[in-house]
């Protein structure tokens, strides 16, 4: 029986992972865009990205575009697998296979 992933299950982290998984492999989202898509605040989003990064589910790349710092977040292979497993578990719960 599959278990829900506690790291992904938190609502904001679920949105972050959903957004990153909607992109092709190795394509990331800029922090500002992720903020707009999830409706999170800077601090909140930063903290949850850090949690996902510590779990190895996302990678964070910081670079300068011109003089502006730009942070890009990308789902890792492990993150994609974990997210797919989490979604499958949610579907199983809805189908009544788990309580």
């Amino acid at each position: 029986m599959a278990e829900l992933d506690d790291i992904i299950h938190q609502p904001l982290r679920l949105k972050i992972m959903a957004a990153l998984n909607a992109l092709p492999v190795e394509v990331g989202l800029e922090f500002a865009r992720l903020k707009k898509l999830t409706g999170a605040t800077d601090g909140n989003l930063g903290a949850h990205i850090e949690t996902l990064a510590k779990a190895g589910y996302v990678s964070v790349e910081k670079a300068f575009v011109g003089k502006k710092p730009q942070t890009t977040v990308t789902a890792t292979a492990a993150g994609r697998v974990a997210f797919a497993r989490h979604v499958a578990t949610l579907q199983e719960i809805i189908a009544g296979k788990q309580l």
Partner: protein
Amino acid sequence: MIDSKQASEALTDIEDTVRRVRQSQIYEVSSLVLLMWGVLAFVGNISGWFWPRYGLYFWFAVYAISAVGLIIISAYHRSKNRIRVFDDRYFLTFALIAAFGIFCCYFGHFTPRQQTAFWPIYIMLFYMMAGVWFGTAFLVIGATIVALTLIGYFYVPGLSLLLWMAVVNGGGLTLGGLWMRRS
């Protein structure tokens, strides 16, 4: 463990986020196309106003430049997001839309003034249809330009219609592109 209602809510959240990402990607590339078309429509109308005799040639040039522009935007987007935006099917679709427009103008015996109003209204029809599927921004931009074009057609006399269209069509598409970029 969560119950099926909570699981269903989580899946709805995921679907909603994925839909937002897709819309954001569509808006990102569409905004570039709109900005390009805004500038080209402005230049096409202004050139036609200055040199009315050569209006048709200017518009052929505008369409040729826009085709090259679409290829460049497609290549840029592909290198950035690894998603192919425009392929042969899109270009064939654009060609069919243009061909049907030419067909209407030819068999409808449209005057130059009627054609000035027809083309933006005709193209905006497709924007509005896109709005039904991909986001309300297309619908708002299309409906606004159609309304302003009709006002110009009925109330702006003579060649001044081209100046009106430069502002309405060129300016409308440019503002629409900037709005989409921020959405």
